[in-house]
């Protein structure tokens, strides 16, 4: 089974790698934009799966970090700064600080309380963005210049943006896969499995959960910064609670606690949005039943239909 998932992963990466060339030849540049969007939202979904699937933290405010990363790029460009290192440096730092603050107040709580606190903070940031008129308020803010890295990589270039996003997504996946098997990851999963037992063997759950929350927030913040580069526009809508819900749907569709499933979930969700919305603006009416079907018949997400979850015994 392991072999199969490796092959599928390699195949998926190969396909994703060819997208710019194929869309170029077929003259369908729109689909390059679409795939870029999938890759960026996959990051957000993977970042959520890291804390949801392995830390048991159901964050219902993850879109806040998309906003923080996005506004970092938007606001810096507003002041004429287009240096990519500064853009992404600020995006990372800002989302880390916001995650640290939200995390300190939320990770001690569990279940519904955690959901409500993360939701409340993301709504606060949403209304903050609406109320600051300097940066467009409700109308949003045009990103005046995309990120340029030392004059070499320019994210205004569609192909470069795509490859940069793809590389970052793959990097994040690799980091997450290492992380969940590391000492830190074992502790995180132990806390999800039985927090009381973890305390009894001497662990203090707070610091591990908090750090995981910050790592996740930063990953989502980077996705936000890339998203701002893609749309060259940022508005409070990016932080709306329904956006947080979408990220969660992506992670659930693909399969919680699989990481790679989130990538499939992001593709599936955005693909459905794309196709269904051609038939009706109320495409979510069709999405709802589909989600029910997935939850009922593929409880571990779409990925589990392709690669069955780990067998009853594992070796090595």
């Amino acid at each position, binding site marked *: 089974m392991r072999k199969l998932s490796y092959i599928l992963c390699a195949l998926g990466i190969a396909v994703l790698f060819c997208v710019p060339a194929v869309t170029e030849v077929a003259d369908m540049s729109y689909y390059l934009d679409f795939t870029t969007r999938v890759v960026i939202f996959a990051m957000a979904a993977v970042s959520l799966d890291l804390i949801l699937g392995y830390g048991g933290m159901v964050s219902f405010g993850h879109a806040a970090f998309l906003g923080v990363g996005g506004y970092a790029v938007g606001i810096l460009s507003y002041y004429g700064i287009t240096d990519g290192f500064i853009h992404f440096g600020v995006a990372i730092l800002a989302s880390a600080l916001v995650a640290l603050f939200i995390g300190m107040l939320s990770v001690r709580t569990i279940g519904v309380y955690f959901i409500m606190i993360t939701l409340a903070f993301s709504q606060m940031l949403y209304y903050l963005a609406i109320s600051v008129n300097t940066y467009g308020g409700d109308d949003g803010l045009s990103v005046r210049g995309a990120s340029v890295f030392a004059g070499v990589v320019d994210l205004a270039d569609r192909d470069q943006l795509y490859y940069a996003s793809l590389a970052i997504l793959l990097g994040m996946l690799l*980091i997450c896969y*290492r*992380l969940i*098997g*590391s*000492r*830190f*990851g*074992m*502790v995180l*999963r*132990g806390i999800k*499995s*039985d927090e*009381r*037992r973890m*305390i*009894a*063997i*001497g*662990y*203090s759950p707070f610091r*591990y959960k908090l*750090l995981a929350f910050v790592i996740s927030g930063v990953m989502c913040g980077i996705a936000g910064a890339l998203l701002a580069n893609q749309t060259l526009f940022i508005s409070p809508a990016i932080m709306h609670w329904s956006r947080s819900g979408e990220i969660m749907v992506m992670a659930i569709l693909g399969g919680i606690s699989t990481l790679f499933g989130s990538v499939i979930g992001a593709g599936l969700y955005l693909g459905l949005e794309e196709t269904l919305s051609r038939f009706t603006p109320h495409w979510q009416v069709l999405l709802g039943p589909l989600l029910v079907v997935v939850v009922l018949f593929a409880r571990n997400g779409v990925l589990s239909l392709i690669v069955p979850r780990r067998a*009853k*015994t*594992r*070796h090595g």
Partner: protein
Amino acid sequence: MDDALLRIEGLVKRYGGLIATDHLGLSIRRNELHAIIGPNGAGKTTLVSQITGEVRPDEGRIVFAGDDVTRLPPNARAAKGIGRSFQITSVFLDFTVIENVSLAVQARAGHSFRFWKQAAGEAILRDPAHAILAKVGLLDRADELAVNLSHGEKRALELAIALAGSPKLLLLDEPMAGMGPEESLRMVKFLETLKGQLTILLIEHDIEAVFALADRITVLVYGRAIAEGTAAEIRNHPEVRRAYLGDDEEA
């Protein structure tokens, strides 16, 4: 300093009008197996929770290895060497058996803020975990998911996790709970092998197991220690027989 590893002085815990622990004094000597018996509602579990730190006492002190730990949170007490097993089996069900024990070893083997190296490949975690699994007889089940173990195996794993932290004091909250006679016997035999290597505080309903294992026994009734002594002394203590063993039982 005396030879007591754990000393409890004037411990009081009230729940509203109910007094669960009533000015309890208790002294557990190093390397002895000390059992606590008592009827349901005697406050045994409340006492365990106060020793582990999950419940804060209203009055009194808990001194462990010479340090006052009354205000320490549970994880800090565990780090000091107070290990425990739970009455209701509490293992990481979605982990393999070896992962369960390795995770407990990890709590004592350096810090856990390592993010890249795979824990499964660390000999410093695996080797002690294997040794403990061999001790409790679960080595051939090492790669099984804990959820697939039988009840008796889960109880053994529960104990293995507690032992993996190399505690100075091991609190065993009804380790034989829900076990058949054969499994109980095996557990008693295993606990016998631990005797003298570490200090054990045993809470157990199985009175014969307690009499067979304990160096000393404390009888708890309504949160107070009404008697303390060796198995033979407790067996013949008149108040104990009235309160706990029942008047009608002939010795």
